């Protein structure tokens, strides 16, 4: 039986993309698998009794080493802010290519804590900073120093000791350009260096909290329990800065979604599902029902989504256990079809993620196809004809072409770069100033404009001749020829419209990172958790691949 890939027109709608969850394809899970045979070590821990100082952690294999350099700083409570406009953080980090010398550490100590206003070099691969979750951190120090393990309830409501507020890579602030490292097989997948940084930061937070407790009460203090540590991750506060990424990297986005869709298609085409495969699927489902109960948020929007997910998963669980014959052929295709007919997007996509769990042989080959050599697709094929261009637009943007851009609502917002922090922001076109400096992210509007413009052009004319007089549409012509070969490269929605929910864009990207516990703090930023339940660095040589469902179970 042949199953078709799901239609880009359906999948690439923001409400659908905003319902994606972590899966075996997610980068943090891939990272752990790819680095399980690397040697982890704590190379330097020069931290004072209050937890301030520097530390270095590394992963190495043969003659290759990646080192996390940590700087823990004293800041006042009123200086602590997760917003990108902050200038001081509890800790700042850089991932260094190799083993840093004393000279490197001194250089980095003058720059890394300053983050955006410091300068780093091509020897640094990623840059980040993080703030303590004060309530949790202080509680853990207090408990451990008194010889007690901390209250799990307090810990797991939050899920981490620290949260990062930005993780930079790919040439930002002088960091190594991607071209310098793209041929290294161990970090070929997307965002592997950023995942490595966050993972090692997590270990630093445990070591720091143990160290402070020990110094506070040397005789009585105990170390944080391994099981508790494993169930803590690293938080992250994410705002709009991340949203345009998925618009600005169309071939990369395509490759992420195409990997997911290809895996789903292949699983639906499995004729005979083995007993151990369905049992693993059921086990992950069972653990999910408990795990999701720990997802807390004050956002009604997200609360509604979580509640729908929980009730839909329960409904599905009943169907699976009571009504479905698990011996039937093409079992996962039946499950998928039932989910589509009976459940909401949030749960359908959760089940899609669960379906991947038993199938390493299907998932793993796709993991290596999730990067993109974006430069290859920059040139516009100017020899092609207007007829070709029209066909591409009609085939790939049919829903976009139906949008009426003469209405105010369709043009409500504009994306701009903040002068203050050089980060992307969103504003109301009719209430705020600056729309004349709009970023080229209004893809739907510009596609429609292009379509209307070429309606008067001769079919046989070349795209090059069209561009000679229409260079204002050059950016969108480039995209049109990208989607021809990358059908999942474009969000099939109007991201300047009044109905836009920006966190849908964030959730899409974060799901591919492998984040969970989505906690929107407004429609424009949210908190998440990464690596909660993940093996600790000294456990990497052997761990349960379904660790993400094990947390709190």
């Amino acid at each position, binding site marked *: 039986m042949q199953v078709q890939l799901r239609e880009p027109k359906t999948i690439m709608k923001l409400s659908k993309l905003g319902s994606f969850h972590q899966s075996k394809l997610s980068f943090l899970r891939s990272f752990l698998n790819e680095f399980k045979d690397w040697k982890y070590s704590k190379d330097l821990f020069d931290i004072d009794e209050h937890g301030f100082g520097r530390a270095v952690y590394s992963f190495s294999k043969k003659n290759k080493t990646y080192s996390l350099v940590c700087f823990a700083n004293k800041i006042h409570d009123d200086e602590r802010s997760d917003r990108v406009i902050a200038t001081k953080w509890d800790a700042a980090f850089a991932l260094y290519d190799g083993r840093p010398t004393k000279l490197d550490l001194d*250089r980095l100590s003058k720059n890394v804590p300053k983050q955006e206003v410091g300068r780093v070099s091509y020897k640094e691969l990623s840059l980040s900073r993080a703030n303590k979750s004060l309530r949790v951190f202080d509680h853990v120090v207090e408990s451990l120093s008194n010889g007690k393990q901390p209250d799990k309830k307090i810990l797991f409501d939050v899920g981490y000791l620290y949260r990062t507020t930005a993780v930079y890579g790919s040439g930002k602030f002088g960091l190594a*350009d991607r071209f310098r490292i793209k041929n290294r097989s161990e970090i070929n997948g997307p965002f592997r260096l950023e995942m490595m940084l966050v993972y090692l930061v997590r270990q630093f937070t445990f070591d720091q909290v143990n160290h402070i407790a020990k110094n506070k009460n040397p005789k009585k203090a105990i170390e944080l329990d391994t099981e508790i540590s494993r169930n803590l991750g690293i938080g992250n506060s994410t705002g709009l800065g991340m949203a345009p990424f998925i618009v600005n990297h169309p071939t990369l986005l395509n490759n992420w979604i195409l990997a997911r869709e290809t895996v789903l298609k292949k699983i639906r085409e499995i004729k005979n599902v083995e007993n151990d495969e369905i049992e693993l699927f059921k086990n992950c489902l069972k653990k999910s029902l408990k795990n999701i109960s720990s997802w807390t948020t004050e956002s009604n929007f997200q609360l509604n989504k979580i509640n729908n997910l929980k009730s839909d998963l329960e409904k599905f669980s009943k169907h699976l256990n009571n009504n479905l014959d698990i011996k039937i052929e093409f079992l996962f295709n039946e499950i998928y079809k039932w989910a589509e007919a009976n459940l909401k997007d949030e749960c359908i996509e959760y089940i899609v993620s669960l379906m991947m769990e038993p199938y390493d042989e299907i998932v793993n080959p796709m993991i290596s196809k999730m990067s993109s050599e974006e430069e290859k697709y920059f040139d516009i094929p*100017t020899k092609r004809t207007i007829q070709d261009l029209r066909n591409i637009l009609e085939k790939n943007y049919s829903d976009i072409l139906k949008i009426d851009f003469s209405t105010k609502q369709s043009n409500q917002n504009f994306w701009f*770069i903040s002068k203050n922090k050089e980060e992307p922001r969103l504003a109301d076109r009719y209430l705020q100033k600056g729309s004349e400096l709009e970023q080229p992210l209004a893809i739907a509007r510009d596609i429609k404009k292009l379509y209307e413009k070429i309606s008067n052009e001769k079919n046989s004319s070349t795209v090059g001749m069209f*561009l000679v007089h229409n260079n204002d*549409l050059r*950016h969108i012509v480039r995209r049109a020829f990208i989607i021809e070969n990358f059908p999942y490269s474009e969000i099939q929605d109007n991201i300047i419209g009044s109905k836009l929910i920006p966190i849908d864009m964030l959730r899409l990207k974060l799901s591919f990172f492998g984040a969970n516990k989505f906690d929107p703090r407004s429609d424009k930023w949210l908190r998440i958790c990464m690596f909660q339940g993940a093996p600790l660095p000294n456990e990497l040589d052997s761990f349960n691949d379904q660790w993400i469902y094990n947390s709190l179970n």
Partner: protein
Amino acid sequence: MDIQFFKLMKSFSEIDTTVKRASKAMGFSWGVSEEIGKSITLLEMFGIPGVRTINSYFKIYDKQKFKNIDLISKSNSSSLPYCPVSAGVNFLNQISHMEEINNISINNVAFPILLLPFISRASYISGKKILFKIDEKNFLLNFNQSVYSNYSDRNILEKSNIINISFLDNVNLFTENEWKELYKLSENTFVEESEELKKVGAGAGLTDND
């Protein structure tokens, strides 16, 4: 010294982004600004002073008049200096026509080095090497992989009298005899096969009629 060196370095990603934004601020469309960002990054990667040159051009861009070249012909001249960006973008737009013309001359181009990366990309797109001459300065553009030049001055070229662009035929740079001599040497790595090995060494071909 290391610290000073690191302080000065900008990544290519930063150059691309900043040049793109600066170009937009100068009034170019986003699509053209993307082209300028890529082009200046390319110049810098080739070791040619792209950032300095575009910065100098933008300083006078609003103050002086430049002519946009739309349709490029075999011979192009203007009393006003041509805008190198417009010339470059439209060269790419008309690449198939440019290949047909083969030898193109453009008189009076401002900041001519800014035209080079566009022509370098044209070399890649057309699959042909291009000889790009700015007056007496020669640049051999090799499929956008490298630039071979008799010019290594780091000063900014503000104008050119004449630019010549020639698509070169794909021909070898060596004689047949030179090739034979080299091939003969390479044969010394081959193994003389016995009659038995000739039959089985390839591992296929014996039962192709089954």
